[in-house]
């Protein structure tokens, strides 16, 4: 996995749709253009929907990797102010 200069990390494994995406969206709004957000999320619905929704908001998904414990790590680059 490539190394990224992570600006902020959040864990959304304790919430369900749509709060998963809402928490990711709030975290991204706090960041500046080009900042990197690392998101820990659950397999299943979160992994299917959150990366897609983040892309629809115009941000860039850099990577999605399995953590081996049923969770994933999603790395997103913020695009825009």
């Amino acid at each position, binding site marked *: 996995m490539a190394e990224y200069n992570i600006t902020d990390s959040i864990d959304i494994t304790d919430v369900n749709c*749509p*709060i998963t*995406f*809402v*928490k990711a*969206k*709030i975290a991204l*709004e*706090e960041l500046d253009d080009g900042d990197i957000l690392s998101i820990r999320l659950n397999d299943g619905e979160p992994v299917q929907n959150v990366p897609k929704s983040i892309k629809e*908001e115009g941000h860039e998904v850099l990577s999605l990797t399995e953590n081996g414990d049923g969770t994933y790590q999603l790395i997103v680059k913020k695009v825009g102010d």
Partner: protein
Amino acid sequence: MAFTNEQIERYSRHIILKEVGAKGQKKLLNAKVLIIGAGGLGAPVAMYLAAAGVGTIGIADADEVDLSNLQRQIVHQTADVGKPKVQSAKETMEAMNPDVKVITYHEFISSENILDIIKDYDFIIDGTDNFPAKFLINDACVMAKKPFCHAGIIRFQGQLMTYVPGKGPCYRCVFKNPPPKDAVPTCKQAGVIGAMGGVIGSLQAMEAVKYILGVGDLLTGYLLTYDALKMQFRKIKLPADTHNCAVCGDHPTITELIDYEQAECDGTGL
């Protein structure tokens, strides 16, 4: 200011929207809206703005809740009869959303107090039920350079328009002067279908929210009318020329607020 987990959940359907987001929700929480009139129009406005998390809501009304109000003024409950309407509305809003600070004005709005009351607010809702109050609110908002949303409801009809300083005509540009007292509807004509306040008041709440968020097009320069029996909305373009208006024109002749006399059964807006 960071959101609490409760706020993230409460406002999630707002925050998801591209036009709102966390930034927009914070704008709502920091906004101050004054609702004049806690009746048929003011009720849904108060409830939707409170639910939306508008952080400071002022509400002005001199009346007490009457049994005959409950058919349409949904912010009040049967147990509230006899209570000041502003108190009853405050209790409903605070029960809906603890994020909201409600400031009550249990008094008649007049030329003496209106400028002092509106000065602290970002947006004003005219939810009053009579022509003198509507002209007073218009003139005061023009003079104080405050945006406001006018509305009126009667029988099966409703209308609204939004004034933003420098962005189009004011209420007086369109309606000039209160109608003569004998032209105002009599008691027998002053009925109103309850849901009319819900339709038009909800549209006023929508205008306030859009103004705070800075999104979309407001009803500036337009009058929206609703005929419930024909189930017809009409968006009427108003003349853009404000130069000759007595209050917002180039050479205003109205430079002081006027307390017009209210006709016996003026129920415009109810």
